[in-house]
């Protein structure tokens, strides 16, 4: 291997950033993604030629970069995005995964899906319209889903003469309503996705903006603290027992670390049994590890022979999660069939499976005004509501705001097996 081969070696210090995009109809979200892909040279000739040809056929004057992200035939026909689509691009610094979510009112469910794994949310605002109802909704969902960083792209600046006043007014409006929400890191950037201002290349039209380009921001925003590295949580996913001659007595607990830093020699407690032991080793295919942290997939061996199976959780003795069968959650309903009051559902939490009953609907949230609705407790598709669940078995959980992995659940309809709701534990 040659050491000066930078293309081949560059991956050794690249990081991964996942971000979601949301915007209203026609505020240029697909164009922005197309622009990011095109200007960062992530589009191949055959893809470009295909959209060039489609644009010509549709009578577009310019090559419509939005076509790059229109996936399924139904979307191409109707000209709307109907489901979360994932896009990828990379710079020498980072690899990016974009969860491209539709902005239509009926698709809150897709926005929640796209936001659930994101480090960062890009929210588009049309500079001509300023803050609209959907801006509230997107920001609220980003905060509800605990996305650590939210970036507002004030788009179509070319259509307001690149006016700093227009930008400042919108920025002030967003700052004022987001003060009521729980978002840790909010940023703003004036762009024109169509013309390319401040997306990958700095704008000559907005010298007043000193914050750099969007791509620069995406490449440099600090994401090292986005996982919880404080509370040790290891949901046991699978038990490895080779029963081979070489590993006759091997018993390893395989799983993905959900929080904290584990080291050999740590005193641990196993839930729900409460038995205590010490970590004997943290194994991987490459050998034993000195430490392991979220989101690594590892295998843990304990000093003592304890009966442990999938759904159990290994934690530190002096830092335990909540253990209980009554859980308050913010629920996002994702199915055409409404929630059945006092209905029973299957519930999944980390690697744990149980059943639950929806005991009480406390209130619904109007996602456009953030007001509580207390007199209508019918939970339908795309509704967000605070409910109390009673589970058949104890869950080992943290607040969602503390840990997105141990703080989240999904509900499943037991008749159809469909995933019907996502829940964030309060």
């Amino acid at each position: 291997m040659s050491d000066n081969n930078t293309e081949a070696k560059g991956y050794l210090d690249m990081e991964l950033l996942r971000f979601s995009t949301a915007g209203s109809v026609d505020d240029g979200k697909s164009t922005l993604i197309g622009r990011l892909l095109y200007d960062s040279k992530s589009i191949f000739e055959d893809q470009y030629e295909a959209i060039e040809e489609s644009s010509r056929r549709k009578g577009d004057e310019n090559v419509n970069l939005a076509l790059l992200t229109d996936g399924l035939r139904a979307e191409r026909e109707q000209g709307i995005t109907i489901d979360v689509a994932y896009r990828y691009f990379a710079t020498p610094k980072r690899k990016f995964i974009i969860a491209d979510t539709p902005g239509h009112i009926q698709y809150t469910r897709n926005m929640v899906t796209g936001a659930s794994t994101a480090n960062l949310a890009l929210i588009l605002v049309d500079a001509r319209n300023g803050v609209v109802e959907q801006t509230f909704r997107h920001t609220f969902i980003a905060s509800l889903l605990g996305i650590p960083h939210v970036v507002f792209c004030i788009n179509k600046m070319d259509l307001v003469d690149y006016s700093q006043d227009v930008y400042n007014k919108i920025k002030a409006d967003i700052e004022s309503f987001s003060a009521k929400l729980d978002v840790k890191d909010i940023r703003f950037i004036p762009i024109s996705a169509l013309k390319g201002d401040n997306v990958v290349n700095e704008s000559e039209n907005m010298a007043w903006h000193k914050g750099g380009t969007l791509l620069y921001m995406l490449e440099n925003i600090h994401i090292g603290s986005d996982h919880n590295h404080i509370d040790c949580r290891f949901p046991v996913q699978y038990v490895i027992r080779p029963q081979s001659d070489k590993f006759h007595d091997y018993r390893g607990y395989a799983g993905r670390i959900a929080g904290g830093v584990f080291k050999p020699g740590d005193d641990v407690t196993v839930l729900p049994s409460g038995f205590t032991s010490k970590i004997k080793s943290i194994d991987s295919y490459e050998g034993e590890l000195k430490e392991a942290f979220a989101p690594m997939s590892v295998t843990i061996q304990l000093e003592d022979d304890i009966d442990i199976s999938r759904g159990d959780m290994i934690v530190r003795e002096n830092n335990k999660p909540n253990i209980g069968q009554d859980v308050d959650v913010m629920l996002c309903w994702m199915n055409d069939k409404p929630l059945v009051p006092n209905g029973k559902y299957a519930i999944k939490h980390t690697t744990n499976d149980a059943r639950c009953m929806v005991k009480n609907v406390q209130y619904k949230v109007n996602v456009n005004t953030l007001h509580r609705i207390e007199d209508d407790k019918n939970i339908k598709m795309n509704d967000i509501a605070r409910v109390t669940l009673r589970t058949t078995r104890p869950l080992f959980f943290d607040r969602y705001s503390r840990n997105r992995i141990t703080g989240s659940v999904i509900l499943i309809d037991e008749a159809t097996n469909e995933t019907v709701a996502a829940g964030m534990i309060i």
Partner: protein
Amino acid sequence: MKAYNLTHLRELEAEAIYVIREVAAQFENPAILFSGGKDSITVAHLAKKAFYPGKVPFPLVHIDTGHNFPETIEFRDKFVAELGAELIVGSVQKSIDEGKVVEEKGYNASRNGLQTVTLLETIENNKFDACLGGARRDEEKARAKERFFSHRDEFGQWDPKNQRPEIWNIFNGKKQFGENFRVFPISNWTEMDVWQYILQENIELPPLYFAHERDVFVRDNVIMATCDFIQMKDTEAAEKKVVRFRTIGDMTCTGAVESSASTLEDIIEEVAAARSTERGTRSDDKRSEAAMEDRKKQGYF
């Protein structure tokens, strides 16, 4: 303070291993779909790491069109032996002999479409309830919306309008009798990620991926290897070229690129500089703008 960061490859690896372990935990009779291409080799490698020091608890399933490159079959047998896994072969030739499918005729005849029937039959006969595959979302438009856990009805069909929402990393593998899942652990990887990972892990690949001299001819701007399965037109002439393959499928639909890339480092440089997607050499995708979407609905990989 110390930074607890993973590189993008380590994070993608951790995600894929998590998905593979979920399959072992949630299903009774899973299998790995193995084509002998770099993506399914990567999935098998990840499975090996996921269960170490135990064995991979799934068989490998290969749908053999009978039109494979001989190099692929040779590599497959060696790979399976080293992994110590069981190999199950579904034969398209057998499906043709039994009259379940009819072979295409003409110059562009391919068995690629026929694979779907053999695949679904193999799944049904072996009662597999989940099949791990190496498909990636960056490969093709219709795959950009695919889930990690992709639900298939009792006819093996995929309904793009009725996919289960997939939130966080909580995967719902619940199903009715007769239904099954396709699971794609490397959904979030790009072609470049796969190559970088193969280099990082020093994974062995079939020699087809590296530059070599062979007899080829050009059809519709695609370089095809000459073989008994393709009928050449009078206007087409075989010549020797130094080529390599970016994807490995049937000899009838997998095009080569002229290349001198003989090491993984060379390939990575070539991929970084490439001006067309890897499926750009696949004539099966060129049949129509929605070719992949149509095949996926019917149960293609």
